[in-house]
């Protein structure tokens, strides 16, 4: 986020690490928040681990097909005889850790598709919401009208339309998440801006003749970060949910990396033979989404309590 501090030389501020810890300890005060955080941390650790080590190469068919969980393959194997655990581990990367650029260069940038998509919707949504909320009038009318049009699309339909138009790929999914998420963020930021702009410190900034940009991005935005943080957590959950759904529909992140949704899709064709290959990736998606939701709930509970 574009939260910058006013340029003031020698002021001693609590370090960022300290602030992070403060936020975390706030979450740890809430039981559901702690559970959520634990689930999220679990998957992040799995993702980081998978960068260096997976039990077996995730894309090679080394085993008998459709094995139930056993000592060699802790989660069993899929219909091509690939190790399910390794594929699940590898599958976290595209969601959380890396975005593959188009072309055959195999170049990836850090930050998963879900994270970049949510960042995109936060960025776009915050700008639109601030302008609509703070400026009001025609800005508000026009921005909200356009956003209303975007919101009118059922999310999945918008994904389908975008993918039908632009084809598959990591960047297209990021774009789709950005576009579908931005209206929600904008509405949230707008309502926060409408509230915050009635505060006296905004009057004070106006009576100093501060620029519109200063007031929006330096005075209003930092005070919206609590609710935005909560919203971002929920949105990462939705994004993972959506990536899974797209993968299931065969429209998600392209191979070679395994995609949880697509794993479910492939495995369901053999559902009479092997239910494990359906259950584990399903659980992976659901648990990560639930974890983020719980984390967000805990965060929200504590932030509102803090404000009281």
């Amino acid at each position, binding site marked *: 986020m574009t939260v910058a501090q006013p340029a003031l030389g020698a002021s001693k501020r609590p370090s960022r690490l300290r602030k992070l810890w403060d936020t975390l300890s706030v979450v740890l005060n809430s039981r559901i928040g702690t559970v959520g955080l634990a689930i999220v941390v679990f998957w992040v650790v799995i993702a980081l681990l998978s960068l260096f080590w997976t039990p077996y190469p995730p894309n090679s068919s080394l085993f008998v097909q459709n094995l139930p969980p056993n000592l060699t393959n802790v989660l069993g194997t899929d219909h091509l005889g690939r190790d399910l655990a390794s594929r699940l581990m590898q599958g976290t990367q595209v969601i959380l850790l890396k975005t593959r650029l188009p072309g055959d260069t195999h170049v990836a940038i850090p930050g998963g598709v879900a994270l970049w998509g949510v960042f995109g919707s936060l960025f776009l949504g915050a700008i639109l919401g601030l302008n609509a909320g703070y400026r009001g009038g025609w800005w508000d009318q026009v921005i909200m009208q356009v956003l209303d049009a975007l919101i009118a699309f059922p999310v999945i339909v918008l994904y389908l339309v975008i993918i*039908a138009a*632009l084809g598959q790929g990591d960047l297209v999914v990021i774009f789709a998440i950005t576009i579908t998420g931005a209206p929600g963020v904008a509405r949230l930021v707008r309502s926060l801006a409408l509230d915050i702009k009635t505060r006296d410190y905004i009057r004070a900034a106006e009576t100093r003749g501060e620029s519109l940009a200063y007031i929006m991005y330096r005075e209003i935005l930092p005070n919206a970060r609590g609710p935005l943080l909560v919203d971002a957590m929920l949105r990462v959950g939705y994004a993972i949910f959506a990536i899974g759904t797209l993968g299931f529909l065969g429209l998600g992140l392209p191979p070679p990396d395994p995609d949880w949704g697509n794993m*479910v899709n492939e495995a369901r064709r053999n559902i009479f033979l092997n239910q494990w290959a359906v259950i584990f990736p399903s659980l992976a998606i659901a648990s990560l989404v639930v974890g983020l939701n719980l984390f967000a709930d805990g965060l929200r509970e504590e932030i509102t309590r803090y404000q009281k």
Partner: protein
Amino acid sequence: MARFIIRSILSTIITMLLVSFALFFLLEVGSGDVTVKILGIESTPEQRASYRAQLGLDAPPLQRYFDWLIGNDFRAEKLVGYPLVSIKNQQTKEEEWWANVDGQLTRWQMQKGQLLALRRQPDGSRTKHMVSGGWQTAKNGQEFFWGVDTDNRAVKWVRGAGETVWVRTKAGFRKEGDGPRQYIPLRKGLLRGDAGQSLQTGRPVAVTLIPRVRNTLVLAGVAFLFIMPLALFFGIMAGINEGKPLDRVISILGLGATATPEFVSGIFLILIFGIWLRVLPAVALFTSADAIFSNPKLLALPVMTLALVELGYVSRMTRASMVEVMSAPYIRTAIIKGMPYRRVVFKHALRNALMAPITVIMLHVNWLVGGVVVVEAIFGYPGLGKYIYDSAIFGDPNAVEAAAMLTVTIAISTRLVGDLAYTFLNPRIRYS
């Protein structure tokens, strides 16, 4: 209140226009060359260009947008000089365009440099006639003729300067001389119920869509009827018992339900009911578009899947709203007035608590519709969602546009209903 209602309606109309604009440009302009998809990658650029012209794709985008939205027959009428009518062909059940030449329905054909008029007889057959007159002269001396051809297009022939065109027939691609110079594929436009032809099937999109929409409305409607009372009940129960075990149980189950994607819950339901318990068909085969009416059991799993996600979401919304209202000062007033608890909840809290969810629920109908896409894809249910999905995979612009417009229309009209319901529920708006 008049202001509020007019605003809602106006805003809905503008929204629809914006949506149609966005859809059209994203799909028709933003996506690649559709002729590659139709003709295959082995087709030559020359063939593609000719075919693009025949589809009217060489026209400027904005004009194509308006053709698509409101039709182009009135534009073509001016060129042809006769009123154009569309009538249903009794054999193919498809609409055909004819020019009404002094009471005689007519089309034209160019054969070996000779223009022929096809006149439709009352029994549906047609007779051929030579045409000599009717040619117009352009400023540069060229003679040209605007007429309706046999493929429902208004076309412009230029005498002595036939274009070489590639005609797509059932047998393959054929090269023809004497082709028209300009094509306007006639259509009435989306607003007048003509969504154009599907690239995938070659049939009008509207014909296929109608039973699909009906099936989807059945699915979503049944699910909606299940979800609403249950979700409101659970939400209210959780809300008035905030922090108690009942609330915890409902909230956690609700969260689990919302956080589980439809395809996961759908498959689990298949596993449970179809494979382990064997009470419902695990693989539903929709043999025809009307299968759900002859065997309503087929609806059970799709409805359950759809209901699960929404149930969680709506009950969470209702709970939040109820909790907020229950801590409002006027509820405090009611309690301190000595009102019995039931009266506090039902008379004082409920109405206020339902105001927020109603708009949110109506806003959420597009989630329901989105869920429908996934559910239909899982179960192979022949509805609108499956149609969009199939068309999107194929890249069939007319089909995707029409179907997406329909889903958006459903979503927006429910939202409008929600807005109006809110207006009537909330006296602060009703009496201002």
